[in-house]
């Protein structure tokens, strides 16, 4: 007579998950943690959907970000200010809309020109004016670019006139970017023009300023009167015309178009940094990186640590003594400095760093796990297993570790924030020598290096910091709840 095999596996698993869930949902803190985790995990997983992979890959390519305003706070800041801040605008004029004249200004040359107008009607000037010429210049040749600004009060400013190639690579084209605040030629031209309206006194005052930066844009949009250079003149509202002209010296070079970018004062969900990088992109991808590092390190180190502790306890005697002494040595090593040096040496990707951290982190659970294992070792059912002929391996894995695993999960969760913070610390200190991915720590490093706090670029510092905190909190909440449920020492 055959007996049917009773399908236990799946129903068994479902049952135990159900039982576990019933207990877990009693812990409000755990639920909060779980919700946060789901949010973070979705963000991390959907990073390529929320932002683009291209954004991520070009993180360290400054030219990619030239069109963004630099050091711009997030858009939602506008809710809290009374002043109307200019919105970031990008206007693209394709080559078809350019006036094309051959033989201008002289025989053998070709010139494209266009006038782009901009209505300035805000209370605050834009943070930058960027003109980007897109096209392709033939090998060994270059082009002449002229930019003139015609103000509503009729003044003409020859902002830029130079001969160059198109050195930047943007997509399929090359580009030449002129930023009124950052390109010194342009900013110096504006300052020089404004000086004719300024008092001697004020001119002397600004002679110490660097000849580029936001203040130059203010000058451009101010009324042509005394105080223009020191920001005391009122803003001039009205229609501004940007006249762009590109002259090629050969037949092959071509123009694709030009972009006029009025860099708003605010940008994006989380602002931009000194390179104009959209911090939202950095933080979203950083989320994925943080979770990877945190979870990977934690999982590896917890498993190693648990195994170590159990083996040490089970073997006992000399082996135990030896293992404990080794543990003590590793545990007393100053983790952070060593990690710094190792990261420096081995250069790092997130994966390297996670492994290195795991190398030192495993010591965490060892002592507790060892004492738990010592207790379990003495239990009668372990003796019974030996009497049945179970070998050391089986007893260690099935009987002892089997009992400790639930507790190990709690430990794992609680270790994650530590790993994330350590990585953040290392990236913060090492900067470019550390991981190359935009982890939150790295972002913070860049902020510090650019003097963000001094410049008042709070969003650059606080937002990544808040993310680190929230992520840490998530795992602490989950871990505490798990601990309360699963820790056999707290049970019954």
């Amino acid at each position, binding site marked *: 007579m055959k007996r049917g095999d*009773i399908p236990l596996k799946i129903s068994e698993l479902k049952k135990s998950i159900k039982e576990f869930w019933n207990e877990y949902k009693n812990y409000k803190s755990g639920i909060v943690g779980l919700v946060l985790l789901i949010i973070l995990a979705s963000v991390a997983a959907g990073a390529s959907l929320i932002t683009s992979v291209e954004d991520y890959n070009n993180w360290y390519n400054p030219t990619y970000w030239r069109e963004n305003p630099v050091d711009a706070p997030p858009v939602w800041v506008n809710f809290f200010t009374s002043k109307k801040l200019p919105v970031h605008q990008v206007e693209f004029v394709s080559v078809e809309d350019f006036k094309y004249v051959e033989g201008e200004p002289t025989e053998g040359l070709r010139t494209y020109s266009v006038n782009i107008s901009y209505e300035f009607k805000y209370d605050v000037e834009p943070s930058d004016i960027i003109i980007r010429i897109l096209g392709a210049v033939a090998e060994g040749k270059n082009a002449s670019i002229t930019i003139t600004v015609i103000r509503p009060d009729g003044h003409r400013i020859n902002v830029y006139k130079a001969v160059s190639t198109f050195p930047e690579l943007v997509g399929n084209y090359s580009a030449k970017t002129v930023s009124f605040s950052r390109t010194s030629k342009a900013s110096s031209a504006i300052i020089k023009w404004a000086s004719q309206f300024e008092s001697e006194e004020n001119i002397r005052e600004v002679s110490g300023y660097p000849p580029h930066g936001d203040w130059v844009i203010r000058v451009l949009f101010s009324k042509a009167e005394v105080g223009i250079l020191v920001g005391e003149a009122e803003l001039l509202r009205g229609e501004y015309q940007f006249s762009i002209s590109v002259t090629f010296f050969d037949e092959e070079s071509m123009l694709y178009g030009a972009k006029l970018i009025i860099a708003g004062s605010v940008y994006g969900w989380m602002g931009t940094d000194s390179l104009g990088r959209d911090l939202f992109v950095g933080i979203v991808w950083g989320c994925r990186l943080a979770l990877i590092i945190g979870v990977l390190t934690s999982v590896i180190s917890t498993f190693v640590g648990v195994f170590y502790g159990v083996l040490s306890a089970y073997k006992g005697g000399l082996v135990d003594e030896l293992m404990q002494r080794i543990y003590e040595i590793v545990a007393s090593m100053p983790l952070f400095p060593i990690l710094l040096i190792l990261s420096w040496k081995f250069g790092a990707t997130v994966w390297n760093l996670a492994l290195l951290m795991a190398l030192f982190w495993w010591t965490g659970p060892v002592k507790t796990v060892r004492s738990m294992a010592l207790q379990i070792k003495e239990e009668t059912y372990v003796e019974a297993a030996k009497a049945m002929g179970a070998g050391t391996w089986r007893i260690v894995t099935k009987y002892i570790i*089997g009992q400790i695993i639930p507790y190990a999960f709690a430990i794992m969760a609680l270790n994650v924030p530590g790993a994330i913070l350590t990585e953040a610390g290392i990236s913060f200190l090492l900067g470019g020598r550390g991981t190359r991915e935009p982890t939150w720590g790295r972002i913070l490093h860049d902020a510090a290096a650019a003097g963000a706090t001094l410049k008042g670029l709070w969003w650059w510092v606080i937002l990544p910091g808040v993310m680190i905190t929230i992520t840490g909190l998530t795992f602490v909440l989950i871990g505490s709840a798990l601990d309360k449920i699963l820790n056999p020492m707290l049970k019954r």
Partner: protein
Amino acid sequence: MIIVNENKVTDSEKIREILESSKPNRLIYVRNLKKYFFLRRGLLETLKRKPPKSVKAVDDITFDIKPLETFGLAGESGCGKTTTGKVLIRLYEPTGGMIIYKPREETLDKLTNTGNINIEKYDGYVDILSVPRNHFSYLRRELQMIFQDPYGALNPRMRIKEILEEPLVIHNLVDSAEERLDRVIRALEEVRLIPPEDFLDRFPHMLSGGQRQRVCIARALIMGARFIVADEPVSMIDVSLRAELLNLMMDLKKRHNLTYLFITHDLAVARYLCDRIAIMYLGKIIEMGDADDLIDNPLHPYTKALISAIPEPDPENRKRMRVVPIKGEVPSAVSIPSGCRFHPRCVVLDEHPELQEKCLKKEPPLIEIKPDRYVACWYVMKS
């Protein structure tokens, strides 16, 4: 860590000697079994090179167990009975002595035919202590143990089905999962946990004490046990349920041709269940023989004291003081008294001071006073 092991490999000659000088057809011959637990020495003592102190849990005992018998090992706590049981199935490595055992033929075959080691045997008997540890698993299956605490003996995180499958998995006894399940169900039926399907999925804490103990018994049986050491199997079970479990054990004994070593401190249960009883005191067997005879006619002063100390549910008992002919308390097993280890507590010695010489100086040997009736006492030997 000091390893003191007098065991040398027992060769077949030695086995033959023992067999020829002993009673025939026993299942197990225990000879001069010793188990000492050595205490850690302090630094000073180690430097002074003093020999380590030891707890002489089992101090040179010799006895036989007949096939299909229930052999009782009784005594108070600390007398060494549990340790003896554990050494007998080699859960502990003894400090010295031999355990000559006759396994099933198939087992002996497997033992001798696998590997390039030479197992010393004679007439189907081997000394299980000289079987190398990595070959011991065949014997393991025949020599099993049931523990005192049925809850502690079951892994609280494993379901009953898993617990019972363990031995099959460890020893690779069955090929398919189906067959395994089949065996498990049959084992549950044997120990009267019916319907078995009800119990497969449960965890130990969902069973009563008696039911858990039955699972432990099933676990021993499923491996094909032949000799079972039962260490106080009913002492943690309610009184009114004990007989049920004991009855089951006896039933299984008949059906599976088992032999039991029944360890207990309760002489009444020992009398009820056992064919023969050995009384232990401080690591030595001081009296041994037929259960009824030993209890009705105890010879050793200690046995007499034990028997007189046990209260029966007789309402007259409250009207008088219970007379227990014994002095003092059990000494520590680290400092065992000289000569007869019972002498500091012996009231017979007080009455017969002329025995002082012997009792304080020489340890009395275990002598066969009547056929199959043994005592270790100078006074009894004299009379």
